[in-house]
């Protein structure tokens, strides 16, 4: 902006500060993403920022049961591996919770009654006993392992199938797409009428739209819920339907939609519209053939807004779709998980990332339109 300030030391300070802020702003999301693809055992014992370094884990496992014992000479032996499908390295092991790190890997540990346990660094173990092993459960083995970083999509696999996020994803789409398109159509027609048609009460309507812009939608919930119950009873359907939530989102999104689109449409050159009128076009022709194509940027920006808003909404979905499995949207599902699986970070992080991935993609690919829409609404 100011040429002389380009090279001053201040500039370096600016670079450093912005870098610092950007890091602060991105780290939370980055942490979520990294965590969601970490192994769930590692996730719960070490911070995600250590994801790339080897971590030390203390693990309790059980050896195979006595059923698998074989006789080798005069010894009854149970063999197996503690680290199947993992590339960890065992450093220490023990057989009692009192001293889980009693022995270095590879040494032979003496247990009761002449029994011995040997655990190798690669996880191979051998339990030997002069007498036959009894019981049905295997011996407990404590070990400390150096686990190399491990990334996996298991968390995603689990939440998508077992936790029902796949279904919720579809529900979210079913809610979001019509709840984005319908308000655009309704608002575009209304915005054109408010911008270019002459009729009594126009100024009043514009003022009403601006006023409704700030009405907290919580205000509406109780009366609407009552109305929905009545209407649902009347038609003999439940009060929680997709049509119900589409219309609710449409209603709540309309003030902003009309306001944004009216600002944009009113700003189109009047001569173009008059020219079309001289050419014989009716208002409906003008709307379809001139206004719609010319308002594309504004329509796109509102579409993005509404999409993000509906996709991210929790309140309206909870009230108008309810909490039952088959209707639960992603945000609702995430909230359920937060309640029921509050400590299972592998599930929470993966679920959260699934809920935010679509809006993030939309955001980064269409950011230009979003910014333009924001500006149309606020800067004059």
């Amino acid at each position, binding site marked *: 902006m100011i040429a002389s300030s380009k090279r001053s030391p201040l500039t370096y300070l600016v670079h450093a500060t912005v870098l610092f802020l950007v890091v602060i702003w991105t780290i939370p999301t980055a942490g979520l993403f990294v965590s969601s693809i970490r192994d769930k055992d590692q996730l719960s014992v070490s911070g995600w920022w250590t994801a790339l370094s080897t971590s030390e884990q203390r693990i309790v496992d059980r050896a195979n049961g006595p059923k698998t014992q074989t006789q080798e000479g005069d010894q009854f032996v149970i063999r197996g591996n503690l680290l199947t499908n993992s590339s960890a390295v065992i450093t220490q092991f023990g057989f009692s919770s009192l001293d889980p790190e009693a022995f270095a890997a590879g040494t032979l540990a003496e247990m009761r009654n002449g029994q011995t346990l040997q655990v190798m660094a690669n996880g191979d173990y051998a339990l030997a006993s002069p007498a036959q092993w009894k019981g049905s459960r295997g011996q407990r083995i404590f070990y400390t392992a150096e686990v190399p970083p491990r990334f996996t999509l298991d968390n995603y696999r689990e939440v998508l199938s077992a936790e029902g996020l796949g279904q919720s994803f579809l529900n979210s789409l079913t809610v979001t797409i019509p709840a984005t398109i319908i308000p655009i159509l309704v608002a575009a027609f209304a915005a054109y009428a408010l911008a270019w048609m002459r009729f009594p009460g126009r100024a009043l309507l514009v003022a009403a739209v601006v006023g409704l812009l700030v009405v907290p939608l919580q205000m509406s919930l109780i009366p609407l819920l009552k109305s929905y119950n009545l209407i649902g009873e009347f038609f003999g359907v439940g009060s929680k339907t997709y049509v119900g939530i589409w219309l609710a989102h449409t209603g709540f999104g309309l003030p902003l939609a009309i306001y944004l689109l009216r600002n944009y449409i009113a700003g189109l050159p009047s001569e173009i519209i008059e020219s079309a009128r001289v050419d014989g076009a009716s208002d409906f022709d003008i709307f379809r053939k*001139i206004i719609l*194509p010319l308002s594309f940027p504004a329509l796109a920006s509102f579409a993005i807004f509404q999409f993000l808003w509906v996709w991210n909404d929790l309140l309206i979905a909870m009230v108008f779709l309810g909490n039952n499995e088959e209707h639960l949207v992603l945000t609702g599902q995430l909230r359920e998980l937060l309640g029921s699986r509050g400590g299972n970070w592998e599930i929470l992080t993966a679920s959260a990332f699934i809920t935010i991935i679509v809006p993030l993609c939309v955001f980064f690919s269409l950011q230009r339109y979003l910014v333009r829409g924001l500006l149309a609404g606020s800067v004059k």
Partner: protein
Amino acid sequence: MADVKLTHVKKIYSNKVEVLKDINLDIKKGEFIVFVGPSGCGKSTLLRMISGLEEISAGTLEIDGQVVNDIPPALRGIAMVFQSYALYPHMSVYDNMAFSLQIAKVGKESIDQQVRKAADMLQLTPYLDRLPKALSGGQRQRVAIGRAIVRRPKVFLFDEPLSNLDAALRVATRMEIANLKDSMPDSTMIYVTHDQVEAMTLADRIVLLSAGNIEQVGSPLDLYEHPANVFVAKFIGSPAMNVVPCRIEKTGEQTQVSLSSTVMVETPIITGSSEQAKAAFFGIRPEDLLVVATEAEGFLSGQVTFVESLGEATLLYVTVPGCEEMVIAKQAGTLKTQRGDTVHLSALPEKMHLFDDKEVSYRR
């Protein structure tokens, strides 16, 4: 192809301001009429009322003998060219020109034929597939005109169509519009401008408006030679006519006025005896003033305060003793006259103008 007749037409906007006051005008078929006047005087409003884009508050508008006050624009048989061209930015040149016909549900072939004919006439054929943003200003202007031609209107309406063009292009396009008129002798054209040169060069008749009133209607030369009042006199011609307060000393076939205690002039303008000793305004165009060698040959003398050399002409700003405003004299070529010199000015008596105390011209 059509007469346009305005009778007692008024325009009052919702804020109660009377923008046009009692306009009466008779435009004949095939005429090229120019509305000219300072900006804000109501030219566009008048044109838009004729087009049907603006409601007529009072009075009647007839096109071809039919009252059209309530008829929508599309059915009035008019076409309009806007100042900003108002091309549809998302449509190709072809579609821009075809739009009105498509709306009117004209057959495809017929549309194609008419669009191509108009494009040919305006040398737009190579650009038919382009979007307006890929055209130069002059080309856009021609598309706007083409869009009007395609509709084969009875009346063409132009609202300052050249004001967005640069000076050179403006002259070229002005000539194109003149040619267009020649090639369509039957079409009536109504053209709005604030530029008196455009008005003078294009018009069959000029309608000069000021503050919602028609000041004068007439041919360009008529307005130049016989301005009806001081406003018209000053508006037409550049630099503006010198108008100096004076007093009528002698009435009759030849009127004698005094500009100051020392300057007396006689012109062949008829005044009645009741005008005797009244205050009046004496007018003379800068280009009608001649620098002469001696005081005896001229009727005005004064000191040169500024000299503006334009090359093809020189403007002398002369301070005349006893006159408040400087008198401007326009002389062909360059002069040796310098600031501070005293000059003597003469003029042909028949080039002089005389206006009464209400600034209305006396009959000649």
